């Protein structure tokens, strides 16, 4: 590796995190800390930083001697890798990877309190069988109510999608790089992209909680939650479509003396309209599934009904609702897949 003296940061960070993890695990195993010690965030963070620094430095040292660490193996550009490398078990990085993966698995089993005993506990199994027994013998007497509620859910999803379209449509041009070329435009682009990412990273479930405080529990809150999430998701997908349009028609329309709005309408919109429709139908499909979950926190529709019966352990009724949800989701899934296929 003497031909390339460039210092690569990513492999060092990766190995640093490896060391941080392994050394912390070792510390816990050896010291057996008390609860109070585990909760001392400041001291533990300092310890972690120290371990990270050790790993970072060690990785640097090893790598500078020409030996590959796991980090190097992952992040180094292909042309720097040795084409006739030894089998993995004869290398440092191979053992590093093996040790890290195995210890992660062991820690994971302990953390999630994985227990074959609980899984095979007869009392527990009895309970589960009772539940399944109920669900697989649905109580069809509540079917009319379930149907009414799922219609509410479908419309929640539909309205959320429809109301999101105009917002997402306009925002998609404002958050497309090829439209927002000026420095001012770039600022708007950056702001909107960041804003969408933040909004999307907040789950629709959280939005539903926010809106149920704002406008009260019910389908309106659920619809608003889905709408906010849909605007951010659709705007991002739409704007990626806008960015992938070909420049030829844009130049063609510009050369006729058309203004910016006319260029968007005649050169960009015809190129993106079908993928737009396709994305929108898929979003509706997603919204129906999400609307079911949102009902669980008081967003109205079938989810609200489901949580009521589940709370009272009325499993046959839950079974009926699950069947209704499954049928509707399946039908919409099929329908949207066929429509999207036809639009290609």
């Amino acid at each position, binding site marked *: 590796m003497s031909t390339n003296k460039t210092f690569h940061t990513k492999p060092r960070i990766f190995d640093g995190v490896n060391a941080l993890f392994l050394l912390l695990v070792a510390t816990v195993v050896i010291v057996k800390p008390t609860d109070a010690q585990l909760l001392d965030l400041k001291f533990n963070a300092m310890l972690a930083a120290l371990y990270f620094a050790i790993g970072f430095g060690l990785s640097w040292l090893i790598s500078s001697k020409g030996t590959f660490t796991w980090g190097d193996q992952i992040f180094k550009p292909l042309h720097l890798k040795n084409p006739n490398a030894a089998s993995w078990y004869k290398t440092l990085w191979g053992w590093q990877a093996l040790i890290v993966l195995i210890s992660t698995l062991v820690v994971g089993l302990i953390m999630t309190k994985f227990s074959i005993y609980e899984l095979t506990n007869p009392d527990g199994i009895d309970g589960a069988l009772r539940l399944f027994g109920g669900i697989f013998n649905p109580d069809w007497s509540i079917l009319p109510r379930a149907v009414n509620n799922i219609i509410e859910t479908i419309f929640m999803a539909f309205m959320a999608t429809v109301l999101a379209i105009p917002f997402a449509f306009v925002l998609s041009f404002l958050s497309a790089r090829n439209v927002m070329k000026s420095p001012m435009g770039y600022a708007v682009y950056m702001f909107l992209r960041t804003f969408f990412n933040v909004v999307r990273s907040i789950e629709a479930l959280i939005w539903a909680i926010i809106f149920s405080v704002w406008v009260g529990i019910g389908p309106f809150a659920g619809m608003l939650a889905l709408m906010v999430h849909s605007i951010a998701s659709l705007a991002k997908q739409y704007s990626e479509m806008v960015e992938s349009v070909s420049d030829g*028609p844009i130049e*063609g329309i*510009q*050369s*006729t003396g058309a*203004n910016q*709005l*006319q260029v968007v309408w005649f050169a960009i919109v*015809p190129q993106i309209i079908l993928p737009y429709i396709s994305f929108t139908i898929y979003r509706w499909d997603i919204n129906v599934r999400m609307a079911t979950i949102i009902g669980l926190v008081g967003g109205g529709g079938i989810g609200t009904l489901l949580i009521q019966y589940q709370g009272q352990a009325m499993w046959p009724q839950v079974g009926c609702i699950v069947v209704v949800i499954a049928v509707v989701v399946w039908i919409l899934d099929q329908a949207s897949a066929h429509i999207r296929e036809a639009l290609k």
Partner: protein
Amino acid sequence: MSETILSVKNLIKTYDNGTKALKGISFDVKRGEFLVVIGLSGSGKSTLLRCMNRLHDPTSGEILFNGTDVAKIKGRAVLNIRKKIGMIFQQFNLIPRYSVLMNVLTGRLGGMSSFKSLFGLFTAEDKAQALQYLKLVGIHEKAYLRADQLSGGQQQRVAIARALTQRPDVLLADEPVASLDPATCHVVMDYLKKVNQELGITVVCNLHFLSLVRQYATRVIALKAGEVVFEGSPEDITDEWFQKIYGEGAKEVHVH
């Protein structure tokens, strides 16, 4: 043939990445002529045409058109100039999903309000004229087909009709036949000649093939590395000049 319609003076274009595409170009375009610009790929031909209708902004210099300095204007004035200077492209640049007629009608956008154009409210007169120009380029029976169902040569004729509906004084043609086969090549060039001679529209055309230049041009300028290295009539391009323009050892390719 004596009146100057476009006058380019000391035109310089340097791209943001530092590429010097045009290094001070000067020439005149006479009203009614068929001026051909030749030169290697990367010699600045396309940049030159795109500066003349402000698809690109020149770095400095003048482009006088009907008494206006095209290089200096801004905003609406740019759109008005583009309307008077039509353009056709190597890749035709039609809207693939729209009908041929609709594509030709977009040539009217320059004179329309945004509101009317959003709803596609083209007048009957606009449509009649669009069909008339489609007839001129011999493709009116395809008016209601989708543009992407047409062959390359046919698409380029639609593009000519689109430019004509702008009722331009000048038509810029950027390598109009470079992506067509030799036979179709001549069809499209013949229509450009027709537009030039029958409608009296001045044509400025970038071309690769010297044989086409000799057949269609009334005057030629040659660019090399962003500078004008030849200006004269097509007959004056001797083998010696050809070597100068295209480099030592270059051989002429004939399109029949």
